C-alpha cells in the first residue's frame, strides 16, 4: 500500500497551480486535505504524475460573506467551516450536516471543496450544495466560471470540472428569513458513508428535498407545499426514481424505505424549524 512515483508541486500562487494543471491536464491532480486522494494513491487506484498542493495559498483559505452567500475557498478545511461563528444562523444546513462528514480527525484535514470535487454519491457536502442550489467557482488560464451544483455534479465521482480547471471555491446561499432546514442521515456506524442522507429546505411556499447515497449523485426535488398523501406519493415517486441498488450494507428496498421515511422526517423537521 505505497503510492507509485509522482511529482509534487506546492503552489506558491494560484497562477502557478493553474499553470501546472494547464500543462499536465488529466495527469495532474489537485491535493488539498488529501483525505480521499492519499488513500487512493496508496492503494494505487489513482496514478497522477503530478500533485498540485494548494493548501499554501492564503487567497483560497478564506470564508467570506458575499452578497447573501457564504463563499468557501478551496483551501478551507471542513473543521474551519464548522467552527465559523454563527454558522448555525448563517446557514443552518451546513451546521447540521458537517458533523456527519467523516470524523473529527478527517474534518481537521479534509477540505469543503475537496469533498465536492471528489463527488462521492454518499458525501454530505455535495448533497448540501445541491439542496441549497449553490455554485462551484472554477478558474483556468484567462477565464473563470461559475457552475450550478446540479450541473457540476454529473455522476459518480465525476464533475463538470475540466482537466485544466482549478476549483477556487464554492458558494452556499445564506439562510433567508422564513426558511427552515434539516439534515438526517443513516449509516451503519457514525462517520460511515451514508446509506441514505436527506437535506431539506422549507419555506412558506415550497419544500426542497435532496437525497444522497442512493443514486450516482445527490438528487433534489422541489415541490409545492405538499402534505399528507400527496407528500407520501411524491416521496414514493422519488424513492423509486433514484434507481437504488443493493450493496453489502443495504438493499435497494431498504434505501427506498429510507428515502420515504427519513425524507418525511427531514421535511417535517425543516418545517418545524421555520417557526
Amino acid at each position: 500500500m505505497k503510492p507509485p512515483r509522482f511529482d509534487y508541486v506546492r503552489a506558491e500562487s494560484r497562477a502557478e497551480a493553474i499553470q501546472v494543471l494547464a500543462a499536465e491536464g488529466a495527469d495532474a491532480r489537485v491535493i488539498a486535505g488529501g483525505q480521499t486522494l492519499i488513500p487512493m494513491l496508496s492503494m494505487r487506484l489513482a496514478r497522477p504524475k503530478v500533485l498540485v498542493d494548494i493548501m499554501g495559498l492564503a487567497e483560497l483559505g478564506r470564508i467570506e460573506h458575499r452578497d447573501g452567500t457564504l463563499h468557501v475557498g478551496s483551501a478551507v478545511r471542513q473543521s474551519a467551516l464548522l467552527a465559523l461563528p454563527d454558522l448555525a444562523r448563517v446557514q443552518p444546513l451546513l451546521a447540521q450536516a458537517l458533523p456527519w462528514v467523516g470524523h473529527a480527525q478527517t474534518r481537521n484535514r479534509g477540505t469543503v471543496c475537496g469533498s465536492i470535487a471528489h463527488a462521492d454519491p454518499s458525501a454530505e457536502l455535495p448533497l448540501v450544495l445541491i439542496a441549497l442550489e449553490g455554485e462551484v467557482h472554477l478558474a483556468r488560464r484567462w477565464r473563470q466560471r461559475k457552475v450550478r451544483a446540479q450541473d457540476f455534479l454529473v455522476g459518480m465521482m465525476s464533475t463538470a470540472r475540466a482537466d485544466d480547471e482549478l476549483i477556487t471555491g464554492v458558494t452556499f446561499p445564506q439562510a433567508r428569513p422564513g426558511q427552515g432546514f434539516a439534515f438526517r442521515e443513516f449509516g451503519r456506524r457514525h462517520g460511515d458513508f451514508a446509506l441514505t442522507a436527506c437535506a431539506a429546505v422549507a419555506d412558506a411556499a415550497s419544500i426542497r428535498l435532496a437525497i444522497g447515497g442512493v443514486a450516482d449523485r445527490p438528487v433534489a426535488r422541489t415541490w409545492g407545499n405538499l402534505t399528507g398523501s400527496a407528500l407520501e406519493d411524491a416521496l414514493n415517486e422519488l424513492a423509486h426514481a433514484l434507481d437504488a441498488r443493493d450493496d453489502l450494507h443495504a438493499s435497494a428496498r431498504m434505501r427506498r424505505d429510507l428515502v420515504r421515511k427519513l425524507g418525511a422526517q427531514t421535511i417535517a423537521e425543516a418545517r418545524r424549524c421555520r417557526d
Partner: protein
Amino acid sequence: MPATPQTWVGRSIARVEDAALLTGRGQFIDDLGVPPGTLHAAILRSPHAHAAIRRIETARAKAAPGVSAILTGADVERLTSSLPVGVRAPIKCWPIAVDRVRYVGEPVAVVVASDRYRAEDALDLIEVDYELLPVVVDPRAALDANSPRLHEGLGSNIASERQFRYGDPEAAFAGAAHRIGIDVTYPRNSCTPLETYGVVASYDPGEDSYDILSSFQGPFSIHSVIARALKVTGNRLRMRTPPNSGGSFGVKQGVFPYIVLIGVASRVAGRPVKWIEDRLEHLTASVSATNRATHLEAAIDAQGRVLALAWDQVEDVGAHIRAPEPATLYRMHGNLTGAYDIRHVSVRNRVVVTNKTPTGLNRGFGGPQVYYALERLMQRVARRLGLDPVDVIRRNLVPADRFPYRTATGALLDSGDYQTALDIALSEGSLADLEERRSTARKAGRRYGIGFTAVIEPSVSNMGYITTALPPEERRKAGPKNGAQATATISLDPLGAVTAHVSSVPQGQGHRTVLAQVIADELGLKPADIVVATEMDTAKDAWSIASGNYSSRFAAAVCGAGQIAAQRLRRRLAAIAATQLNVRAEDIELADGKARSRSNPGNAIAFGRLAATSHWAPGTLPSEEATAIRETAFWTPPELTAPTEADEINSSLCHGFIFDMCGVEIDEVTGAVRIDKYVTMHDCGRVLHPGMVAGQITGGFAHAVGAALYEEYAYGEDGSFLTGTFADYLAPTAMEVPSPVILHMETPSPFTPLGAKGVGEGNCMSTPVCLANAVADALDIDDIDLPLTPAKIIAAIGEAEPAAPRQTGGANAAAGAAGAGRALHGSGSAHVHAPVQAVWSALLDAKVLASIIPGCHGLEQVSPTHFRADVTLGVGPVKGLYRAEVKLSDLVEHRSARLEGRAIGALGAAHGEGLIRLTAGADGGTLIAYEYDAQIGGKAASIGGRLLDGAARIVIRQFFEALSRRVGGAQRPIWRAWLEQILKALGVRP
C-alpha cells in the same frame, strides 16, 4: 490503600506497561531498527478465488530498479517442505500458490527490493496467466461430491469427518416429550488487531540457520512447524518477538506461513528481508474465525429439561487445512453441552474446504459458533414450550454440588455455582428493570426485546484436544498428546534485584504488571521492585509448545508458573536467611523487603542483600541446592489428559461461567439495533487484577458487538472478497459500544496455582447470541443470522412496500439480495445517428473498436472476432491499466452479437458477457440495446464494492457514446472540432 497490603494480587495497581504505550514509546515490530542492508518484500496476490496458474512472467519486474529477487511457488517448493495439514490426506499446503490459486489474496509471487515502494512498483510488472476454475464458497455446497474440487488428494471437499456418541442419545430422543431443532449459519469475522503482521527474517548460509523476528503470538508448537518447513533443526530456527504487540486476539498466530515465506525470501536474496503486512492484505488474506453451518437438535422433557443434543456441524476452514485447524471445531468439544447437565450427545463433525482465506485463531476460538447454536436453541425451547427463558436455563444448569463435573463429552468443569451466579445477575443486574423497559417501550409501540444466555468460558487449552479429530486407532499410532506447559524464569542479580521472564507474548494485556504482583507477594516485595520481560527468544528462553498467548492461559497457567518459580526461590532464600539470622528456615518470612524471623521480627536482613548472597558469597550458602540465582518453573496440569478411547476430551483446564442478559430496541425506520442495557455476570475464579479483568470483559464485549451487529468477511458468489477496507469491514468504534454492567462472583479453580481462570474470551462467546436472542424477542421471530444488519432486520419486519407509481428507473435495475456478491447485471440502450449497417461494421472493425473502447491503447486483432487490447479504465481519478480480451460470437448480421470479455490488471480482474441488439430507428438511426453480466474480482471488488455498479455503467456509457460519435457522423461541424483543438493548445477553452 494500606502501606502494606495483605496481598498485591487482587488489586488494580497501575500498569507498568502504560507509561511507554501512552507516551508513544512502545516498541512495535515496524518501529524497531533492522540490520544494515535489509531489503523489503511486497507480495503479489491472486485476484481470483480459484484458478490454475499457467505462467508467471517476472522478467520485467526483475529488471525494475532496486529489485533484488523475485520468488514464486516453484522457488518455495524447492527450498521448503509443505506445511503440515491437519488431516491424513496426500495434500500439501504451501505459504504461496504452487500451480494453483485457491482464494482471493493467496500469495503468488514475492518481490524483494531496496524499499517497499520499489517492491510494489515491480509487482505491477509481473504478469500471471490464470485459467479460471469453478469455485465453491458455501460450506453446505462444499459437502456435495460434485462441487468444484480444491484439493484432488482429498477426493472431495470434505477434509475430515468424524461421528461421536456419548451416553445413549437415540434412546433419549426416542423417549423425549419434545424434539426441537435449529439451523444456524455463523458468518466469518475476525478481531482485526490494530497492528498487522510483520516479519524480519535473516538467513545465515554459513550456519544454515534462520533468525526471524515476527509479531507471532504463539502457540510455539508452530516453531516445530516452521522449522520443518524451512528444513532446519529446531536449534537453527531462532524465533524472536518484539517487546510490544499492537494487538492480536489470536490472529497473529496466522503470521507463520509468512515467517516461512519471508525466511525463504531472505535465503534467496542473501540479505535480511522485512515485510509488514498492509491493511488490505490483512483483511483479505490473514486469517479469520471459521464460518460454520450447524444443525442442532435437542430432546426435551415435559418440564423443559434438555435430555440429549444432536450436533451436526459443517466447519469451513477456507482453502487449506492449515495448522492448527481443524482446532476451531475441536476446542469446544468437551463443552458441547455448555453450562448444562446433559448426559446424552451425538456429534457429526465435517470440515470442508472452500475458496476462501484459510482460517485460524481468533478470540473466542470455536465458542461463538457453538454457543450461537446452543443458546439460540435454548431460547427456541422456551418459545416453543411457552416457558420463561430464564427458567429453561435454570432448570438445565449443572447443579452446584456436582463439581468437579465431568461433561458427557469429557470436559472436567473445575468449579462453579451457576445457580447463585444467575441469582446475583438477575437481582444486581435487575431483570425487573429490563422487563420494565420492555413493557414501557412495547406499550408505546416500539420494538424492544430481551435476550439471555449462559455459557461456560473454557481456558488453558489442552494441547492434545486437536487429536480428537483423529480416530482412536490413529491417535494410538501417533502417541498421546496432552498438557499445556507454562514456563516462568525468575533471576536475582548481584545487586539483589528481581527480573522475571515468561514465554507468554502479551498483546497489550498487562502481563508484566500482574506477574510483578504475583512475584511480589511471594518474595515480600513491591511490584515496582520486579522487572518482567515478556519478549520471546527461542534461542535463549525457557519455552515449550504451549508457550505464547492464547486460550486465555495467562492468569491461570503462566501466572501460576511464575508463582511456583517465586515460591522455589523463596524457599532457597529462606534457607540462606536462616543461616545468616541463626534461626530455622521455617521461621523465616519474606515481607516488607526483608527476610525476617517470624518469632522475632527485629532479626532481619534486607531482601537485596540476601538475594545477592549467591553471587558474592556462594561459599556461605548452607548447601549447593540453596543457590538462589535463577529459577525456571515448568507447570502443566495433570487434569489435561489425552482423549480417551471413547473420544472424551478435557479440552480445557478451567471453566468460567457467564450469564448475560440485555435489552435492545429496534428502530423501525432504519432497522438499527440499539443496545439499551447489557448485563454480564462472570465467575472467572480468583480475580488477580480487577481493572484488567474489566478491561478484558469490555474488550471482548466490543469485539462481540462487532460480530453481532457489524462485522462480516463477505465473499461474492464467485469467491471475490468484498470487505477489503474498514469502510466495508465495519469494526465498531467507541460510538457503537455501550458500557456493559459487569458483575462478579469468585469460585476459585482448584486446578490452578492461584485459583484463577481465563476471562479474555467469554464475551466473544456469550454476547453475539445474547444480542441475537434479544433481537429475535423484539421482532418475535424464530430465525436470524449474524451480523444483525439493518437490511436483515428491515426484511424480518417484513412491511409491504408502497408500489412504484409508474415505470420509473433509468437504464437498468439490478436485483438480488444485499451482499449477494459483486455480480453486476445491467441493461440499457443507446441511440446512434447511423444506419444499422454502419454500426454493425464498426463493431467488427479493429480500428473503430480501438478508437471507441474507453482508454484503449492499441488493439490487436487475433481473429476476425477476437481482439486483445491494453485499456485504461476508470471513473474520476480512479484509473487502472488492464489487459483485455474480447471475443464476439453468435453473430446475426446487422441484428445481434454476443460479447465475451475479460480484463486483468493491478486493480483486479473482470469477466463477463453481453448481448447487443441493433434495431433500425425511424429516423435512419440505430437503436442499440444491450445487456451484460459481469463479475469483478481482486482489489477493485475488495475496496470499491460500493461504487462498482456505477463505475461499470459509466464505462459502458462511454463506450456507446464513443460508438455513437464515431459512426453517427459529426454531431458538430468539423471546423468546430479543429477550432477547439487550436484553442486547447493555446490553453483556452470555448
